[in-house]
């Protein structure tokens, strides 16, 4: 009985597995192999030999890679929790004004269906030192000195703040949507019971809504952590191909991969790209495993 069922399961999964092996596993394994090549010229398809860790060590000694690591981790560790908290708060807010719910869901969903490079360019204008909306608002509020957020005299800090604001804003839509529909599935009786038990709004949020949403929060935090570790479009959109001021100051791991991937003529660079992609893959896997382990303890059900 059991084996027969297994058979069927595999049969049904076969097309999916085939597609996944062609488009996911094969490139992954290929990248893995390329990362061991020495002096690889992709155009000629020639190599000078093999190295086990040579490419990896070169990357780890490259300050640009560490800059990319720093930026990527700052983006992941700040934008993910901030956007999760904000979207939860907005979803809770939307719940209490059911009439506006539909309208706001559309508004918040717009960024999700818009190309993020295009939106990034629009943000770049908003952050402009002289014509930007942000500085105009700040001036209205009484902050006289115009900040150069992302221009020629901007610092790493201002650029990172701009990037974080953009990243959070861009990722809110999907999260709000998922959280609102998740909340609709929570039995109203628990909220009635909480009222009888004299729970404050904050207590209800912290001790009832969040725990009962925890499987969804976990799902969102894993997927958006992975998404943040792969940040690229937002950087290109906001800072252009120079990747910040000075050049490459806002580089991310994926941007680093693309940078070396593009240098087809230089021997060995393709392998650096492959090796850094593999490092990113390993980091991503480690994060997912950690989050999975944490969830066993903290997620209800």
């Amino acid at each position, binding site marked *: 009985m059991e084996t027969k069922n297994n058979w069927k399961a595999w049969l049904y999964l076969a097309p999916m597995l085939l597609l996944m092996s062609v488009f996911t596993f094969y490139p992954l394994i290929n990248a893995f192999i390329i990362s061991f090549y020495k002096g690889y010229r992709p155009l000629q398809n020639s190599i000078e030999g093999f190295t086990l860790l040579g490419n990896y060590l070169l990357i780890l000694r490259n300050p640009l890679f560490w800059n990319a690591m720093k930026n990527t981790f700052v983006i992941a560790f700040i934008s993910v929790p901030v956007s999760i908290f904000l979207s939860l708060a907005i979803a809770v807010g939307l719940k209490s004004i059911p009439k506006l719910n539909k309208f706001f869901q559309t508004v918040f969903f717009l960024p999700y269906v818009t190309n993020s490079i295009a939106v990034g360019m629009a943000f770049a204008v908003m952050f402009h030192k002289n014509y930007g909306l942000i500085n105009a608002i700040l001036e209205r509020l009484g902050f006289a000195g115009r900040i150069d957020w992302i221009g020629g005299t901007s610092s790493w800090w201002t650029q990172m703040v701009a990037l974080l604001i953009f990243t959070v804003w861009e990722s809110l839509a999907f999260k709000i949507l998922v959280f609102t529909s998740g909340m609709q599935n929570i039995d109203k*009786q628990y909220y*009635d019971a909480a*009222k*009888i038990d004299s729970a404050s709004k904050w207590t209800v949020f912290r001790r009832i809504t969040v725990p009962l949403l925890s499987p969804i929060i976990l799902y969102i935090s894993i997927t958006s952590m992975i998404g943040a570790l792969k940040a690229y479009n937002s950087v290109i959109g906001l800072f252009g191909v120079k990747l910040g001021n000075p050049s490459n100051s806002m580089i991310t791991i994926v941007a680093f991969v693309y940078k070396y991937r593009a240098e087809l003529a230089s021997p060995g660079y393709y392998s650096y790209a492959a090796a850094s992609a593999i490092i990113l893959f390993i980091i991503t896997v480690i994060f997912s495993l950690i989050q999975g382990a944490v969830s066993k303890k903290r997620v*209800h*059900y």
Partner: protein
Amino acid sequence: MDIKMVNLTKIFTSKNRKEVQAVSHVDLTIPSGKLIGLLGPSGCGKSTTLYLIAGLLKQNEGQIFFGEDEVSEMPPEKRGIGLVFQNYALYPHFTVRENILFPLQNLHVPKEEAKQRTFEMAKLVGLEEMLDRKPKELSGGQQQRVAIARALVKKPRVLLLDEPLSNLDARLRLQTREEIKRIQRETGITTVFVTHDQEEAMSISDEIVVMKDGVIQQMGQPQDVYDHPVNLFVAKFLGSPQINVFDGVIEAGKVLIDGMAVGATELPDQKVVIGIRPEGLQVDKTALSPFKFEIDLVETIGRDTTLIIEVTSEESTLLDKKTFKAIVDAENRIRPKDVIHFVVKPEKMHIFGLDGKHL
């Protein structure tokens, strides 16, 4: 503290714009420290009444007073009530301990005291061994007791119970019923107990309130309501087996069923509906009474014998059912096919107008 409802009305509007008066112009005072059984068939508005008292629903019309305070506009968290929901609504991610502790934490009761009270409450409902379990690891009855503990632990001004025993087995039901009665006596807390089980309501309540279609039919001590129902609905709703109901007429001071005289009355001549409680039919040993039937089935349980009479004739005067019942002493030794003459105890017979009102 008593609870007073004045002209309380709740209207639900469903999706197709149809209006349902779930609670309709209810005037009701629940005396302080008493246990009141709110009784009625499914969908008659019992839960709605409870939720109005709790403040979880807002009335369309009318007022609610707790003692001297009007609470009509007060949010539920300020009303100081304990409520046991029809399907418990225990927080699934909390342990039993956390469930009971939760109201105390919200009321900022000092930690040590809260711990103490939680434990005492768990002991009171017999769950002190299960404090660290999650609700889904408990049986239905145990979950219900957690819900009762959670409602009582904050020493509420009013305790509302929405069919709290509906998921218990017969034995546990009796036990928990006594338990609730005992807790209510000890705490002296004004309690409203909703049920659709008339026997449960009669046995536990100081007074019962019978409801139908959102309207209060009658309120009073259980025995009084049973002995003096104001209408046919109340008469039929209380008592098991149900009251026997016949078409009848009054002619010249005689109450007649199918031409057989069953009693005397001072009411004027008219068509009526006659209700006779099963225990009001007594075997007439002299066989002089004209009210006679052939017995179809005899059930003897302990002291009592239930005689079951099937009525087959098309133009039967028996309303609603095809059988009617009489409860007599077991010593009568009656067997099926015997023809029995009955006399009717006058106090067990109720005469209603064709509109159902007691005459």
